[in-house]
């Protein structure tokens, strides 16, 4: 069995499961946010139950329009907060949490071997921990909150193997953008992506989360990393929850295997309006920009902020550019403060904010006007994603985003750091 099949089998009480099989799966953790929880709560009430299956396994996080951007979003956040209090669920208030996909692993709430379902497509981020983490809609999450179980179709698995040694300034964001460029936005539709290869061996947890985060951008249900010492060190430092390490069998059946030699890979940029429209940096041309966003559940982690700060230190953003930096959690905010990174960003002329999804989904804190272009470290560049339907989003790594902010056009860090 593959890694996905192993974890699902263990949560269905079966010895073996096979791709395509419909199974009822026990879940270890259920999550919703300020956008998806209101509908999930409404559907939960329709079930006629008074209590969630286990309040210590249900997490609610205000992140998308929080701190609330308007009266309506305040109402949605209030509804969720009151439900969390009523049920005694786990809840992270604004200023004490962050974006759920970065926050929950940090708080030790997701561990290897878990089945974790969340009402947000980027729930798959936690696949980096060797947990079967997948996004669903509000109604599915309502049922999971109520019963602790959910139906799933066992996904087939696509194995992705990365060989070689990464160039300077090439990061996991470039690997996943390159992968999506190769296989397409539906290249892993309904599938589990399993990440392997010597090029990934030294990757930090922060870097792995970035790759798993964007598995859904290839249509995948989950993006899994096998557990190793790097995973265990991260988990042991943060969690007391019992975990289980599963490994794919040597004779596991993969629907597809893709091998990539990434030795000469350049930083990758995804052009509007799909994450698969990738180009290597050398083929980008001269593209003037209006905004840079460094943040989101994809690249708002401490490693990302350190990298961006190292490029922007002692420099100033181009006069026609707004640069917005938003840490993905409050823990990261505090760490950035202690390390002097915030000072670096502010001195470089960037706006720095408390943790929120903010501009990533065009909520607030950096919405684009008609015709504007943004280089963003987030995960989606669909039409109207960050604002006006005639605005453009270019996806890139924090290093490329930081360099672009300084030069006012899409640029690589090698042009800025000598």
């Amino acid at each position: 069995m593959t890694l996905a099949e192993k974890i699902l089998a263990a949560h269905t009480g079966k010895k073996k499961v096979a791709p395509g099989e419909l199974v009822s799966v026990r879940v270890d953790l259920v999550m919703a946010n300020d956008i998806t929880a209101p509908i999930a709560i409404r559907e939960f009430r329709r079930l006629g139950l008074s209590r969630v299956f286990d309040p210590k396994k249900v997490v609610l996080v205000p992140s998308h329009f929080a701190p609330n951007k308007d009266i309506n979003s305040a109402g949605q956040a209030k509804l969720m907060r009151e439900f969390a209090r009523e049920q005694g669920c786990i809840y992270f208030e604004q200023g004490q949490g962050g974006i759920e996909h970065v926050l929950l692993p940090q708080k030790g709430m997701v561990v290897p071997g878990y089945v974790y379902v969340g009402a947000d497509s980027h729930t798959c981020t936690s696949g980096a921990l060797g947990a079967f983490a997948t996004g669903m809609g509000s109604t599915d999450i309502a049922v999971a909150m109520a019963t602790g179980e959910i139906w799933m179709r066992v996904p087939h698995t696509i194995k992705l193997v990365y060989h070689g040694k990464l160039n300077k300034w090439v990061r996991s964001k470039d690997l996943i953008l390159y992968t999506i460029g190769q296989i397409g936005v539906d290249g892993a539709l309904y599938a589990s992506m399993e990440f392997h290869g010597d090029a990934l061996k030294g990757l930090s947890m922060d870097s792995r989360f970035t790759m798993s985060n964007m598995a859904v951008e290839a249509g995948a249900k989950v993006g899994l990393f096998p557990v190793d010492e790097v995973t265990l060190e991260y988990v042991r430092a943060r969690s007391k929850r019992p975990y289980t390490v599963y490994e794919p069998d040597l004779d596991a059946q993969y629907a597809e295997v893709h091998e990539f030699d990434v030795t000469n890979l350049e930083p990758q940029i995804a052009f509007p309006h799909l994450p698969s429209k990738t180009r290597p940096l050398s083929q980008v041309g001269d593209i003037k920009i209006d905004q840079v966003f460094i943040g989101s559940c994809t690249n708002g982690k401490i490693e990302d902020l350190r990298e961006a700060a190292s490029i922007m230190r002692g420099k100033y953003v181009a006069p026609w550019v707004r640069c917005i930096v938003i840490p993905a959690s409050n823990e990261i905010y505090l760490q950035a403060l202690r390390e002097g990174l915030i000072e670096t960003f502010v001195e470089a002329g960037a706006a720095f904010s408390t943790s929120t999804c903010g501009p990533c989904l065009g909520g607030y804190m950096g919405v684009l006007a008609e015709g504007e272009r943004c280089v963003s470290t987030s995960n989606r560049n669909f039409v109207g994603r960050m604002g006006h339907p005639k605005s453009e989003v270019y996806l890139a790594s924090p290093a490329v985003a930081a360099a672009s902010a300084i030069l006012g056009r899409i640029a690589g860090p090698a042009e800025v750091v000598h």
Partner: protein
Amino acid sequence: MKIRGFAHKYGADVDTDVIIPARYLNVSDSAELAKHCMEDIDADFVKRVKPGDVIVATTNFGCGSSREHAPIAIKTAGVSCIIAKSFARIFFRNSINLGLPVLECDGVCEETDKGDLLEVELATGEIRNVTKGKTYRAKPYPEFMLDLIKVGGLIEYTKQKLDIRRR
């Protein structure tokens, strides 16, 4: 159950951000969401759509965000059914859970023009383009999903299951 309506045609990778942009997600009211359905790729959709109409598209319909607001907006706008070559998985689940039929079928979109009259027989998966005189057969649902659709979605299905357990 027979569906009969006129076609609205789209291409590949119609994402949930264009189905219902995030700027409208500060409410959960179905009618409010429906007012902005498809706004960013088809500004007149809401004005044109009539109850019972059918959306046809090619691959990966509903990709992106898990927002259930997307199928809610489409259903509440009056659409009775979506036919596509393939669907993004979360959108597919959400639609079935809500009782919005979504059918996977090759060839329909390519051979259908905007405004063609379509008929869909859900029980058999037969799709007929009345205007063009062509017939297609959608990929059948697994039995479990048919049960789910029959009882009216996941909430009703779960309610029945919970009732059985309580007895």
